[in-house]
């Protein structure tokens, strides 16, 4: 039988490692909960969709509706994208040195050596 309710007493938590998950609960939530979705909202026509957060939903339709209710209730958006979090691939934090630091001293890659005519704005 799956144990749904577990009482905790003082000392049950590992105080040196707060927030550590308990194996039983983790397994349970993986089996029963809805997948996670990343939400992108476009706030105005012409602007990009921006990542605003994530939420749980059973499928894409539900994710869009949940996103509408959670992330656009204060007039934040006119368009929503959703994508299941597992389809997002990310760089590894440990690779940051080799990936990003080499760009630090390449100032010649910034187009700062051109004189822009006054008529050109927003460059």
């Amino acid at each position: 039988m799956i144990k749904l309710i577990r009482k905790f007493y003082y000392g049950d938590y590992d105080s040196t490692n707060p927030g550590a998950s308990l194996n039983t609960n983790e397994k349970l939530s993986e089996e029963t909960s809805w997948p996670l979705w990343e939400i992108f909202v476009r706030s105005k026509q012409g602007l990009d969709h921006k990542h605003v957060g994530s939420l749980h939903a059973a499928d894409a339709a539900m994710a869009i509706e949940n996103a509408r209710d959670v992330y656009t209730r204060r007039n934040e958006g006119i368009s929503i994208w959703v994508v299941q979090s597992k389809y997002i691939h990310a760089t590894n934090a440990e690779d940051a040195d080799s990936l990003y630091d080499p760009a630090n001293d390449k100032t010649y890659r910034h187009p700062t050596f051109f004189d822009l005519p006054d008529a050109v704005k927003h460059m």
Partner: protein
Amino acid sequence: MPENMLSKIDYCLHLADNALILCHKNAAWCGHAPSPELDIALTNISLDLIGQARNFYQYAATLINENNAKGDSVTDDHLAFLRDVNEFKNCLLTEIPNGDWGQTMLRQFLFSNYQYFLFQQLINSKDEQIAAIAEKSIKETTYHLRWSSEWVIRLGDGTPESHSRMVHAVQELWPYTGELFLPADYEMDCLKSGIGADLELLKKDWWNKTHEIFSEATLSIPGKSFVQDGGKYGKHTENMIPLLTELQYMQRAYPGCEW
């Protein structure tokens, strides 16, 4: 006060009461919905509904005050918090217990479906204020209908457990749907004077949509069944008194209290 003015006030109260009572029932899910996302979704709907209720109460209060120069003036708060159970004109469907999530979703679908076609007609009301409130509300209601339809389909055409719960919900709620289309005398008056909706017409639209969603949800529409009515005249189910006791508690216990 002229007779048709009384009918118009009753009509506005009826529309307001529908929204207020369903808002209150839905709000009880706050903090208890199956997931935080759904918690927010349903309370959003409650907030939409209280906005609609407020608009109709404010209009009713204006009409009452204009036609009752000698008496005490009333506000939207009076109408919501200080009327007794037999003065409430909401349809019985709105006061039926929440049951499980499926029953709440089905109740929302049945009601939003009704409200959607109601407001579509009221946009053309000869009364400018009613038409304006309908126009503002229909966008909200369009979403309520879309959202609740999806839940009815999701649960009806879901697992054996969710399907059987939806079948039970249909049995529970169906007897209260007939009342939506039985016009009260004030609704007839308002239809005649061109400010109210034609419930015969509304019924056809409502049936088509219900049919569409139910068949997608693999739910069957019950055959001829008993129609429970009375709400529009203030004859309510046993759920209404505890509901109002809770809803009106603050104003009854501390008259005029504000915060």
